[in-house]
């Protein structure tokens, strides 16, 4: 009971209260600023161990997939190859093993295996994913701007003004209207959402610190 329930709740209480108290004190208040900075460092350390747990999980689930020849097992093989390739050459480069100068390029400018994988495989794949956003924005906008009712029509008209005001040809004529729309009605709505969300986050934090909200520990209130 102590390890499963009381200890996590006690740690949560301390980890929640210390940053709040530290916020109200100046930087020279070492009695509270120091524990606060320890907490921030601890988060990084705990994340490091958790990442190891994640890597183990990736290996286990993908090896299982390959062994059982499940649907898409080839993707699992590619994933494991990529992970070990980058992991091994990245670690070896960082430790300068096997004549590797680091994780960048050799002195003559040719890339190390890690740099090659990063520049010629990883970065283009990342860019490809990000580039898809342009097409998805177009398809989402098409759906959102269809004139179905009064609200959708207002949205369409507003969107047309904003789009025209954001391109060189329309900036002169619609720039000020666009700015007004973004700053006044849009800004007001956004601030309303932000204030509500901030108070919601504070309320949730209070519930977590006081041990009322326990679902993140997988526990019910009654436990």
């Amino acid at each position: 009971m102590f390890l499963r329930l009381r200890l996590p709740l006690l740690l949560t209480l301390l980890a929640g209260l210390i940053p709040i108290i530290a916020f109200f004190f100046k930087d020279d208040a070492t009695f509270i600023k120091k524990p606060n900075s320890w907490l921030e460092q601890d988060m990084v350390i705990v994340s490091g161990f958790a990442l190891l747990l994640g890597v183990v999980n990736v290996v286990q689930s993908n090896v299982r997939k390959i062994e059982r020849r499940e649907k898409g097992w080839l993707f699992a093989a590619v994933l494991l190859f990529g992970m070990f390739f980058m992991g091994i050459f990245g670690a070896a480069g960082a430790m300068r093993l096997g004549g590797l100068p680091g994780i960048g390029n050799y002195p003559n400018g040719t890339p190390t295996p890690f740099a090659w994988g990063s520049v010629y495989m990883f970065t283009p794949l990342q860019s490809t994913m990000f580039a898809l956003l342009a097409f998805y924005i177009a398809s989402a906008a098409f759906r959102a701007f269809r004139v179905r009712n009064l609200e959708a029509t207002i949205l369409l008209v507003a969107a047309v003004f904003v789009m025209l005001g954001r391109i060189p040809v329309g900036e002169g004529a619609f720039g000020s209207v666009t700015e007004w729309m973004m700053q006044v009605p849009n800004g007001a709505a956004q601030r309303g959402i932000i204030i509500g969300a901030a108070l919601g986050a504070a309320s949730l934090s209070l519930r977590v610190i006081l041990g009322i909200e326990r679902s993140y520990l997988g526990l019910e209130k009654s436990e």
Partner: protein
Amino acid sequence: MEHFDASRLNALVLFIVFCVLVLTFIGRARAGGDLFIRKIAGLNAIDEAVGRATELGKKVLYVPGIQSIDENQTIASLAVLSHVAKMTARYGTELDVPNKDPLTFASARETVREAYMQAGRPDLYNEGIVHYVTYDQFAYTAAVSGTMVRERPAANFLIGSFFAESLLLAETGQASGAIQIAGTAEVAQLPFFVCACDYTLIGEELYAAGAYLSREPSMLGSIKGQDWTKAAVALAILLGVIFESVHIFPAFKQWISIN
């Protein structure tokens, strides 16, 4: 007291007012007081989404955002995950929870395991339900999008903290024909979710989800306290607008300014 930062006195006052209001309403709720909480369509639709997946014999995909457990949105998301996992356990529906952050992964695994235990179906739980994908944002997006396209889940939950991947995931899910429930407090991502998803939990609705779904009086009391604080903040804004417009009490603006 020489270490106290006097420039943050206003924040301390608001913090104390907030705590007093929240604790008062929690106390009132525990004493059996009647608390009205408005209906949240996105949370009521969870039953419909899981039910649909069950009828179609397809999986439920739950994406808990891409931030770590120190982010409040992730904690709120885990509360919804707990509810969804209990339902999938009860109905025997397949659940898939891919993770980007390793700490969120560890917490989500614990949350789902406990949910299956509480639903009385520990036999249905397996370690593959909650799995780790990668720490890279777009590699994670590619993996989850791939799952949506290949396995076509009947229900997608995109609840937590999202950034550039929000529309990539939501549009892929929309194209796959899944019923989609999203929720985030990232203001810049909300329009994308509203466009591409069937239901969206906007800002504070996400934070209220755990309390709303659990129907726990003390949790509902905290939402009531939060609402009254919001009313106090709205009043302060209104007073600020009036004072600034007629040029009186300049000290008020100075005092409520955030430092």
